[in-house]
């Protein structure tokens, strides 16, 4: 079906409205997390945390959906400037979604052109879900290393998987976990790169398990 574009004059205010919906979503999620943590006693806050984890998933989905809808309806955003969303060039929605943490860690770690990295990794990342564990993450990682040789790109891959594993343990926005994982990996780069250079899945798995508790 042919896509129709809105008249340009109507686009900026609509984009602004979309942005404010996204901002409100993020603000309210943050406030909800804080209120649950402070208002509820320990035993009650555990099921609440479980619920928040689902809300986080939904919030992340809605956030991505709003961005996708805005792009499809409005076309390129002239105000976006140098906004960074290379994952949107992925071949399917599932790949774009899966590559999102990797696009964040690649940016944080200063990967100059992440398009090759994302193209190589996105299909492997699609297979991830909430049941991912360190062993599986390690297999994904090592399976990609023959195509990903640059140290920063390897660290970006490692930290994206670390952020995914960390999301199993705590309810936090993906952006927060991805940034934190990337910074952690930058500080641990000699240890991580040395482990990856051996190609030993058990060693990579141990590191992923150990440091996912510290994201």
């Amino acid at each position, binding site marked *: 079906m042919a896509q129709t574009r809105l008249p340009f004059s109507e686009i900026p205010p609509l984009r602004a409205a979309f942005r404010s919906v996204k901002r409100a979503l993020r603000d309210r999620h943050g406030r909800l997390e804080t209120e649950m943590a402070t208002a509820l006693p320990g035993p009650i806050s555990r099921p609440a945390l479980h619920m928040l984890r689902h809300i986080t998933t939904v919030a992340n989905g809605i956030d991505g959906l709003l961005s996708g809808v805005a792009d499809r309806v409005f076309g390129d955003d002239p105000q976006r400037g140098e906004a960074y969303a290379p994952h949107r060039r992925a071949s399917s929605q599932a790949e774009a979604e899966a590559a999102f943490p990797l696009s964040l860690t690649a940016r944080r770690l200063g990967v100059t052109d992440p398009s090759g990295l994302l193209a190589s990794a996105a299909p492997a990342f699609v297979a991830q879900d909430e049941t991912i564990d360190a062993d599986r993450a390690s297999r994904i990682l090592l399976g990609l290393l023959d195509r990903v040789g640059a140290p920063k790109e390897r660290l970006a891959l490692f930290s994206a998987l670390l952020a995914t594993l960390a999301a199993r343990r705590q309810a936090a926005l993906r952006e927060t*976990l991805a940034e934190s994982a990337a*910074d952690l990996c930058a500080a641990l780069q000699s240890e991580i790169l040395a482990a990856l250079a051996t190609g030993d899945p058990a060693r990579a798995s141990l590191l992923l398990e150990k440091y996912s508790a510290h994201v």
Partner: protein
Amino acid sequence: MFDLAELVAALPPSNQPLRQAVRRLHWFRAAFEATARHCGETMGCAFAVDEHRLAGIFVRWLKSIEAQKPGARSEREEFFDFVPSLVLRELIADMPLKALCPPDNVAGNPPAEFWPEGYVCTMFCLAVHAKALDEEFHTRREIDRMVDDLRSWYSFKENAAEDTAFAAGFFQKLLGHEPNWTMPATFRARNRAPQ
């Protein structure tokens, strides 16, 4: 010194026990930034935080905990008292804070005026320690009066510039312990309290 209860209240909330939350970089960073913001508002100055440097500090601190953690459960509470002194050592060794202007509201607080960055880092360690100790052992430590003594801070800054392990000893003094000044950042070498 600043009101410790206010410093504790400024820490971000967490669903996890603080001993776990503080070993997650994103909470550690949020807590450090919250303390810097709170102290900055009280002192009348703003601080810039170097996030990458803070990540390096966090990792070195984790590794010192890993290397020094005692096996015996009976030493757990003592180790709790000791661990923040290792954070302070790392913070002082690679200062991640920079005051963006001289503080203009520190008339009654000479240590904060003398060394704003060192003061904020120490307050961060005291706040996290106080909250963790309350959660785990339902107890609190009296902070030694030297915290308000400018001469102690002068000595702290000067000695830590030569050997950052001195920062760990300074923190233990603040908690009322007499450090082993030969190896103040080594838990096994600490002076044990008389039985």
